[in-house]
């Protein structure tokens, strides 16, 4: 692979060193577990959290004479992902063996794709920001390739005094290795890239993106250079399992490399591990210790071939992806780009929003989802999946506002009640007498009373019409917030003799 520099050094992304500015160059290899019921080459289940070695077939355990058979669903998922990354889909690809010995690799080789991957070059548009002015910047990050490969099992070193145990449940589970070009220039960009990639995978339903369950892990390649100079020597940070850690690892690693270079040293190409407890990377193996994997085409598997019609059929069934959804929300619902970005960033949020917005005012729905729902979730530290207020419930609240049954202010209280106690918003409003008072007689009475009780203020208001707001507030207070504010406003002005 020839590395091509696609970016122009941007002063605001440079890292100041003791001897001048440095630019950090980042490339990512993301391992994304394919969402499928069965493994890549066997019928064993991929369910997470099973008893050790419960999901192991004869093939996964590499019993003598066993042969791999490709799981077509995994192939489809890889093609869907490739389409989602706007990438070239290779109609012919080849599975190779990557040979090395380890107890959790029963075959003694991993079946992977080396020279001819199923997916070639693609692109991800990443939004970086917001900056201090609240602006986002869209950058395009190149995808080098995506290939299918088997996951390894897991070695357990803490189960026995002198022995290690091996759990083969993951052995043979399908992974997509998604390799970016070295196009990322800061830890912010790297985090945004991972977030966007995860979002695309979740929209596509090809990977659940749960990094804490190991469904998505990143190998991060980091090097530094003086702006405008050729790429420096890189270090690969293996198996980073959270987006936050990826950012920390990059910042640490860039600083470490800058420190060495500024002291007149040189970077050794090596594989490193990130320690989240210490927030630092440490050497795992040097280039000299690197394996010779002896790749060669797996003779048990014919080349993987399908025609363009096969790809086209999958493209037709592809769901709307975040960028397209964002564009649609802006164009058809009139949302701001910022609001649309917030709503589409997570598929679950977008799904929630679209349910609420269906048949309702999009802007109002967006405001409520972003400010009230997401705000509250953020406060309680819960994910959208854990929301106590369902889209139907929030939609019900919006309907009550629209009908004029409740005011916006009462709606906030209603939201609190639904959040804490649940229930049907409409029934709650009935039961608790939260209905807005639109009966002009009752409002008129309240207005009259407030004016009569405050003759001084009434006098002032006639001279200074903006004072009318005080009367509106008093009337609202007197009616327990249930009066229709527009009606109150009109009546106050009328009674005080203020012209509209």
């Amino acid at each position, binding site marked *: 692979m020839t590395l091509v520099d696609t970016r122009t050094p941007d002063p605001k992304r440079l890292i100041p060193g003791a001897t001048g500015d440095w630019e950090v160059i980042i490339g990512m290899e993301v391992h994304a577990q394919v969402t499928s019921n069965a493994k890549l080459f066997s019928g064993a289940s991929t369910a997470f959290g099973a008893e050790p070695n419960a999901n192991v077939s*004869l093939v996964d*355990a*590499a*019993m*003598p*004479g*066993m*042969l*791999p*058979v*490709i799981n077509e669903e995994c192939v489809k998922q890889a093609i869907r992902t490739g389409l989602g990354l706007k990438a070239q889909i290779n109609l012919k690809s080849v599975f190779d*063996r990557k*040979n090395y*010995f380890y*107890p959790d690799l*029963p*075959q*003694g*080789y991993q079946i992977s794709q080396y020279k001819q991957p199923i997916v070639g070059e693609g692109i991800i548009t990443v939004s970086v920001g917001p900056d201090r002015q609240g602006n986002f910047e869209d950058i395009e990050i190149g995808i080098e390739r995506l290939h299918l490969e088997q996951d390894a099992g897991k070695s357990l070193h803490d189960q026995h005094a002198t022995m*290690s145990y*091996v759990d083969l449940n993951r052995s043979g589970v399908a992974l997509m290795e998604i390799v970016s070009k070295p196009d990322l220039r800061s830890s912010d960009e790297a985090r945004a890239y991972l977030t966007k990639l995860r979002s695309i995978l979740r929209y596509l339903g090809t990977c659940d993106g749960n990094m804490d369950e190991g469904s998505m892990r990143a190998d991060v390649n980091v090097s530094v250079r003086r702006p405008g100079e050729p790429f420096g020597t890189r270090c690969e940070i293996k198996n980073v399992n959270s987006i936050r850690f990826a950012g920390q690892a990059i910042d640490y690693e860039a600083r470490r490399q800058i420190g060495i270079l500024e002291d007149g040293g040189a970077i050794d190409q090596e594989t490193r591990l990130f320690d989240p407890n210490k927030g630092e990377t440490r050497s795992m193996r040097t280039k000299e210790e690197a394996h*010779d994997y*002896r*790749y*060669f085409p797996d*003779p*048990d*598997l*014919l080349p993987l071939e399908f025609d363009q019609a096969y790809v086209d059929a999958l493209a037709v069934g592809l769901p709307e992806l975040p960028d397209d959804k964002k564009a649609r929300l802006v164009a058809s619902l009139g949302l701001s780009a910022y609001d649309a970005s917030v709503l589409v960033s997570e598929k679950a949020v977008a799904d929630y929003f679209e349910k609420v917005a269906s048949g309702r005012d999009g802007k109002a729905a967006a405001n409520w989802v972003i400010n009230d729902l997401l705000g509250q979730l953020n406060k309680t530290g819960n994910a959208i999946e854990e929301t106590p207020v369902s889209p139907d419930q929030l939609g019900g609240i919006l309907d009550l506002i629209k009908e004029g049954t409740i005011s916006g202010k009462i709606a906030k209280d209603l939201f609190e009640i639904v959040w804490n106690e649940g229930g049907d918003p409409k029934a709650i409003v009935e039961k608790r007498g939260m209905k807005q008072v639109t009966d002009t007689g009752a409002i008129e009475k309240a207005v009259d009373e407030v004016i009569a009780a405050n003759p001084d203020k009434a006098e002032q208001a006639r001279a200074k019409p903006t004072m009318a707001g005080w009367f509106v507030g008093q009337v609202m207070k007197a009616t327990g917030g249930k009066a229709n504010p527009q009606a109150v406003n009109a009546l106050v002005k009328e009674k005080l003799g203020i012209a509209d």
Partner: protein
Amino acid sequence: MPMNELTKLTIAEARAKLRAREITSAELTDAYLFAIDEANSALNAYVAVTHDRARAMAKASDERLAKGEGGALEGIPLGIKDLFATQGFHTQAGSHILDGFKPRYESTVTANLWADGAVMLGKLNMDEFAMGSSNETSYYGPVVNPWRAKGDNKALVPGGSSGGSAAAVSAWLCAGATATDTGGSIRQPAAFTGTVGIKPTYGRCSRWGIVAFASSLDQAGPIARNVRDAAIMLKSMASVDAKDTTSVDRPVPDYEAALGGSVRGMKIGIPKEYRMDGMPEEIGTLWRQGIAWLKDAGAEIVDISLPHTKYALPAYYIVAPAEASSNLARYDGVRYGLRVPGRDIVDMYERTRAAGFGREVKRRVMIGTYVLSAGYYDAYYVQAQKVRTLIKKDFEDVFAEGIEAILTPATPSAAFGIADQDMSADPVKMYLNDVFTVTVNMAGLPGIAVPAGLDGRGLPLGLQLIGRPFEEETLFRAASVIEKAAGRFEPQKWW
């Protein structure tokens, strides 16, 4: 019927007598078990004899036969090469590293045979992981060829790697045997023992449940006493298999029906490149004799050229070890078979594999690892694959010109002695045994070895017929012409 007459029945003859209820599978099976128990200490053809299993299967066969039911091989006792996984029974590929391994699964080929009513007598000795041409690399010791040179008691090899299969068939220790062929492992031992062996087209038999040696070359086939028996067995062994994606979905023809058909007008190619320097004159004579027989039967003999033949053997000894080095990585002492404890995991691997693999297997794992290594891959493996493509094209070219079968010698010599000085001193000399057979594996074609005569010392020699992909019927037809002309060859019983 006396026991020694029962064991002399061919599969076709036994089949007729079983169906006619003239004999039972139980007595046929007992006759074989008796013969094995009597002979095995001398011949070492079986590494495991499954007496109880054999008798139970025979009893079940007899019950089906009594009801007028039964499959194509109902009640026929067979020997199974140790490379095939047999559920609950010894399956060790002739290796120490698979000590005590009894799989929980049955290979597709043997499952096909049992579904057709065949009876399993036991597991047959073989070169370790099918790597060898003399059966001397087996952890269980060499198989002795039932044939001896005239006036000479010297023990000879039965060929390899399916030496146990060939010796057992030749010595009447089974009615027929399964075998596998990666570079000649069916055809060379068949030639050394006066038996018939066919390696079908790659993909004709499922490889599922066969311990892998070199996946792109391995193919199962039968060794039998005559062409008809080989045809009967292959029909049962062959099938497409969803568990082996390199198996091919084509109907399995009735090979037996092809026998006796005429070869009149059949264009048979004689490749000039198979006249090797230093080849014994007897081999050349035999070849000419085979040509004459086919010509007499009406075949059209055509001189052909397969120009890349000389590169086949070196290329084979790159491709096969490369695949083997990877296929054998799973024997690591972690999950099954032999484990020699060590200080740590790497030490355990090293001790286990050092103790578990024999010299020849280690040699090939090292060759294979070397040719796949960074910096050597392009020079060796990639080159060898290019040669392979050219070899395949050689055959395609002559087939495109109308050639239907190619006649060659099966081996460059007759059986040699066990612990032969020349062979043991020089592995390459041993590898030369496969010189006429490896091209067929490299091209994925079918090839049959059929006995055609005896050499001056009274040892059997075979001829090979190579066919177009999936045209095994042509080979059976041409082979039966040779068989008819040459007659049958049986060893003198000395064991």
